[in-house]
């Protein structure tokens, strides 16, 4: 570890000569240790992966457009569902939030950079290596993993040549996330400007702090689980092999011990961004700041003790079913606190509806819908009907797409003017919002009906009675997919100059009351807060 610190020291020395701008040329992006550069890299990489995973989703929806086999082989279809999930979770949503953390946390807490800049660079490039390794499995003998993103044995052990590569890529992605998490914790604990006490931190920083702890607690468990798969397949161990005294259900327990906190790793920073954006456009301080902090911490704690609600049908005894059922229902309380707080923040506010706010409001409404279906499934006896059907697909897509992804879009629109110094095109932004908000419901809402009627997930073909809703869902999917090209256009257009309108430092009216980043010029200089700020905004408290 001392090596990291020593190297960091060199960087620091450069720093004090001042007027040290970015490197020239492409090398800048490879060797950079600047938090803004690395944040940009993460965000652009996540955007690229969002489209890669999106193309996979389009293949899935095209195949399901009509009953019968149309375009792809069943094996490839299953690879698509598996890879779509892995790419979106580990390649798009998680890196996008790490990118936001890199850009915003130092600026929000008045720090000059992340605490460990060299490790920051490394965690990004390890992520790229991990995702490339994962993508390479698509071209291997036997195809990419096709057993679902949960990688359940014994099915996943039937993967062809791709299995060890997929497992190593999970290791790399885990190492990258853990390094990122350690960096974020060190930054938040040790780099805050004087006067920026923990309970004055913006909620985005708080939610990321808690997320980072979740990451270092559960990514190693997942690494362990896939290592057991690896040794079961190649080194004769029998962790999950019944013939050798193991038990495949054990894998499900270990996986979901990681998997449930993992779900919150994707949603907690979402809550943080929503809590940052809504007060600015409601022109009111966030309602119940400290209750938001405690609710986030409670959700994180509960995430560790509810994992078996993913396995209600596995043959648990009554006591287990009841415990996991009630524990799961408990999560609705802190989550409800958050939803009420967002609503109360908007209550009697002087609201305006710029694109970031539109996405945030849609998030509050549609995330709540996803939360309600989650409550339905927490009821163990009902879950037997919903388990492994399109109902669960609808549920987690509601909590991920119109929640996490919408908030990532909102964050993009909200901070792009700050990052680039240019204003995005509000008209196209709003068009993007309305197309996305309508089509995402056409896409996912019918999947509730399909699931309740009994359509199983992860299958390339289905009985004819499911045809109508599948076609509607696919049409929604195609509109949603195409609409995202507008976002790509806006990002490129804004970087190139946008509307040409000169943006002020605070961009949004009175935003300087809500966060330190709005006291900096737009775009901020390459190095910011080399001397800590003295005035800490307290509007959110």
């Amino acid at each position, binding site marked *: *570890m*001392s090596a*990291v*610190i020593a190297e*960091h*020291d060199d960087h*620091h020395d450069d720093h004090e000569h001042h007027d040290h701008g970015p490197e020239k040329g492409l090398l800048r992006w490879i060797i950079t240790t600047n938090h803004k550069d690395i944040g940009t890299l993460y965000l652009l990489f996540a955007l690229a992966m969002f489209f890669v995973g999106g193309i996979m989703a389009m293949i899935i929806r095209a195949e399901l457009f009509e009953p019968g086999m149309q375009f792809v082989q069943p094996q490839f279809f299953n690879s698509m569902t598996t890879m779509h999930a892995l790419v979106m979770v580990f390649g798009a949503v998680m890196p996008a939030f790490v990118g936001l953390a890199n850009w915003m946390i130092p600026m929000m807490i008045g720090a*000059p950079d992340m*605490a*460990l800049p060299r490790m920051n660079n490394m965690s990004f490039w390890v992520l790229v290596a991990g995702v490339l390794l994962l993508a390479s499995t698509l071209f291997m003998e036997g195809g990419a993993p096709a057993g679902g993103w949960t990688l359940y044995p*014994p099915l996943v052990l039937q993967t062809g040549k791709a299995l060890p590569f997929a497992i190593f890529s999970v290791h790399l992605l885990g190492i990258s996330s*853990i390094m990122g*998490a*350690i960096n974020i*914790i*060190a930054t938040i*604990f*040790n*780099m805050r400007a004087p006067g920026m006490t923990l309970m004055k931190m913006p909620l985005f920083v708080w939610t990321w702090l808690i997320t980072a702890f979740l990451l*270092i*607690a*559960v*990514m*190693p*468990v*997942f*690494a*362990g*689980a896939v290592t*057991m798969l690896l040794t079961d397949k190649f080194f*004769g161990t029998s*962790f999950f*092999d*019944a*013939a*050798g*005294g193991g*038990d495949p*259900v*054990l894998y499900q*327990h*270990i996986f979901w*011990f990681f998997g449930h906190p993992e779900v919150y790793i994707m949603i907690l920073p979402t809550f943080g961004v929503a809590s940052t954006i809504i007060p600015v456009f409601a022109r009111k301080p966030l309602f119940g700041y400290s209750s938001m902090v405690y609710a986030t911490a409670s959700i994180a704690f509960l995430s560790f003790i509810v994992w078996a609600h993913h396995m209600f049908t596995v*043959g*648990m*005894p009554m006591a*287990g079913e009841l415990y996991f059922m009630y524990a799961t229902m408990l999560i609705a309380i802190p989550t409800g606190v958050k939803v009420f707080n967002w609503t109360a923040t908007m209550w009697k506010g002087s609201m305006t509806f710029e694109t970031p706010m539109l996405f945030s409001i849609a998030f509050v409404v549609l995330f709540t819908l996803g939360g309600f279906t989650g409550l339905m499934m927490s009821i163990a006896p009902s879950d037997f009907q919903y388990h492994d059907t399109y109902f669960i697909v609808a549920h987690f897509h509601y909590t991920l797409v119109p929640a996490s992804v919408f908030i990532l879009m909102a964050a993009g629109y909200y901070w792009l003017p700050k990052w680039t110094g240019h204003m995005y095109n509000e008209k196209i932004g709003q068009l993007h919002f309305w197309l996305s908000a309508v089509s995402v419901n056409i896409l996912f809402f019918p999947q509730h009906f399909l699931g309740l009627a009994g359509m199983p997930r992860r299958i390339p073909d289905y009985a004819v009675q499911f045809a109508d809703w599948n076609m509607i869902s696919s049409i929604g999917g195609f509109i949603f997919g195409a609409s995202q090209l507008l976002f790509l256009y806006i990002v490129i257009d804004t970087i190139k100059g946008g509307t040409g309108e000169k943006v002020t430092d605070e961009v949004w009216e009175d935003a300087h009351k809500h966060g330190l980043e709005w006291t900096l010029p737009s775009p901020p200089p390459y190095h910011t807060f080399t001397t800590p700020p003295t005035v800490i905004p307290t509007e959110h408290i």
Partner: protein
Amino acid sequence: MSLDIKQKNTKLIRTLLFVVVGMFGFGYALVPIYDVLCDITGLNGKVESTAVKEVVFPIDKNREITVEFITSLNESAPMVFRAETNKLKIHPGQYYTVNFYAENKTDKPMVAQAIPSISPGLAAEYFKKTECFCFTEQTFKAREGKLMPVRFVVNPDLPPQYKTITLAYTFFDNTEKSVNK
């Protein structure tokens, strides 16, 4: 950045890495924890994998329980495997013997292991076997077929709500793993 912050960072990183390593270990620790929990609670239909001594129970002639036998092969192992009878009506406390037939359909010797499972899982602790082909790996010569007995008793303490017990065996072809040993 001052020396102070660097020291704080080093200390913090050390603690966090300790957590990472600890949680990696915890993932592995879940394996024995899981086994112990299943053992204590008798969940999961896990059955004793060794023979129990034959003890005499009072035979409850008034109570009749159906014991069903299911046989299956893992990943289409090249075998024939069936039970002599599909189900048996039994009295708790009385010993019964049921024959199972397994045959190697290949021209090579085979090592296979049968894994039992009992459902409902909570009834498993009342189902005692004094003799079973599942206690050890079975070796088959090429094309060999074997008749293998299972001797069992259901403890009369079995709670009254259990009227049917299903005993399922899955044969796993372990030839490759045994060769590697």
